[in-house]
């Protein structure tokens, strides 16, 4: 069962639609106590960082996520979720990241469209056992900040400068692209990642986690 963290002000509608389409069971959890007993925990969003930080702190997720990562639970951060999993962000310096993925999230530009709201080709940099091989393909992005790639980065795209598309540390994955909005290519990638995290497709979307 995939647990989707319900951040205030963020919509999970398309992600839930994508998971339904692929047949994965999922549930929303406002607080950690509402999370499923097992399975990946997904932190997704595309709004400003500070309200999301505040929402995570109010709900108790801010304290819970590092513990879940230490316990080996799979965590997946999508777009804003990746920024929250990183060490810090120029969007809200000092205190804007959980530090579960190394690196500082930096503002895009200058000299480019920001937000970057569109489709970019993605190139694989490095092998990771939890992420399928990417042999080229286009993904959809909606962000004004991004993590700089390192030698550990799984895949990259370019918007003015190269940035990390998929960043993995153990069973913690940060994904800058909106796979659920990236057509068949993005959905296939999402499906393979969830399969590699041990999820099995079923067909029964749930009202709650417990």
């Amino acid at each position, binding site marked *: 069962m995939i647990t989707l963290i319900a951040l205030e*002000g963020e*919509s999970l*509608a*398309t992600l*839930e*639609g*994508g998971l*339904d*389409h692929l047949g994965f069971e999922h549930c929303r959890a406002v607080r950690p106590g509402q999370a499923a007993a097992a399975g990946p925990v997904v932190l997704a969003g*595309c*709004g*400003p960082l500070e*309200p999301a930080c505040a929402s995570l702190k109010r709900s108790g997720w801010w304290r819970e996520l590092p513990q879940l990562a230490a316990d080996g639970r799979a965590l997946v951060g999508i777009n804003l979720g990746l920024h929250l999993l990183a060490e810090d962000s120029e969007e809200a310096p000092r205190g804007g990241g959980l530090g579960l993925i190394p690196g500082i999230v930096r503002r895009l*530009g*200058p000299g*480019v*469209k*920001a*937000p*970057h*709201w*569109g*489709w*970019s*080709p993605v190139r694989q940099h490095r092998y990771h056992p939890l992420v399928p091989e990417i042999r080229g393909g*286009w993904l*959809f992005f*909606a*962000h*004004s900040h991004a993590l700089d790639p390192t030698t550990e980065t799984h895949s990259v795209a*370019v*918007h003015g400068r190269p940035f990390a598309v998929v960043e993995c540390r153990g069973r913690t994955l940060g994904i800058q692209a*909106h796979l*659920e*909005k*990236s*057509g*068949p290519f*993005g*959905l296939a990638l999402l499906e393979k990642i969830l399969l590699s995290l041990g999820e099995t497709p079923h067909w029964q979307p749930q009202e709650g986690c417990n």
Partner: protein
Amino acid sequence: MDAKRLVPVLQILGGQVVEPAGAAGPRGLGHPAEWARRLELEGADGVLFQELDGPGRPSGPARAGWVREVAGALFIPFALEPGPIGWEDLEAVLAAGADRVFLPGGAAAEALVAAAAARFGRSRVGVAATLRQAGDRWRVAQGPDAMAWMAEMEQLGAGEILLRTGIPGAFPVPVCRGAAQLALALLVEGSGDPAQAAELLLEGADALAFPAREAGLAALKSALGGHGLTLRN
């Protein structure tokens, strides 16, 4: 390298896709999610829903209902141009899953643009306006010069502007060149004519919105590809 986006437009009235032309008034064509999904499968890079003003214009909850259905069934980004909208209804359609909302341009909307960008993020807020020619300049309605207006919208926090002229086949190329210097994106509403689309995209427009049934997407992509434009394949 970013791809130029091709964005078919669906017009909505009463929660249904409609064909507005015709003496008998708008003709219902079907559900927005079904139409949008069809456009996704044809290769659209996004879908823009324009809500028509009229007696069938839905209340906030009804609008959020069909937007939620689209969000659950469409796996490419979609935007909504709802016309005049209040804060609660804006919050509702974004929570329902609209990736971006184009707010109406104009003095009254400025505060809303700034507040929405601060709360929901620049990527979810756009501004729409119609350009009018005044001598050798283009203005937003009777208001400011188009270039100054675009810069102001960027300062307020808009992530994209949607511009149209209302004149078939006419759109000022200098406005595209001006937008290319800004950080916000420019979505031009045009006819879908490949020659005009190629010119505007080559001169700086980031995306083209056009009537969903005006031109086959595959044919338009093929024609634009011949002009050296980068398009998603």
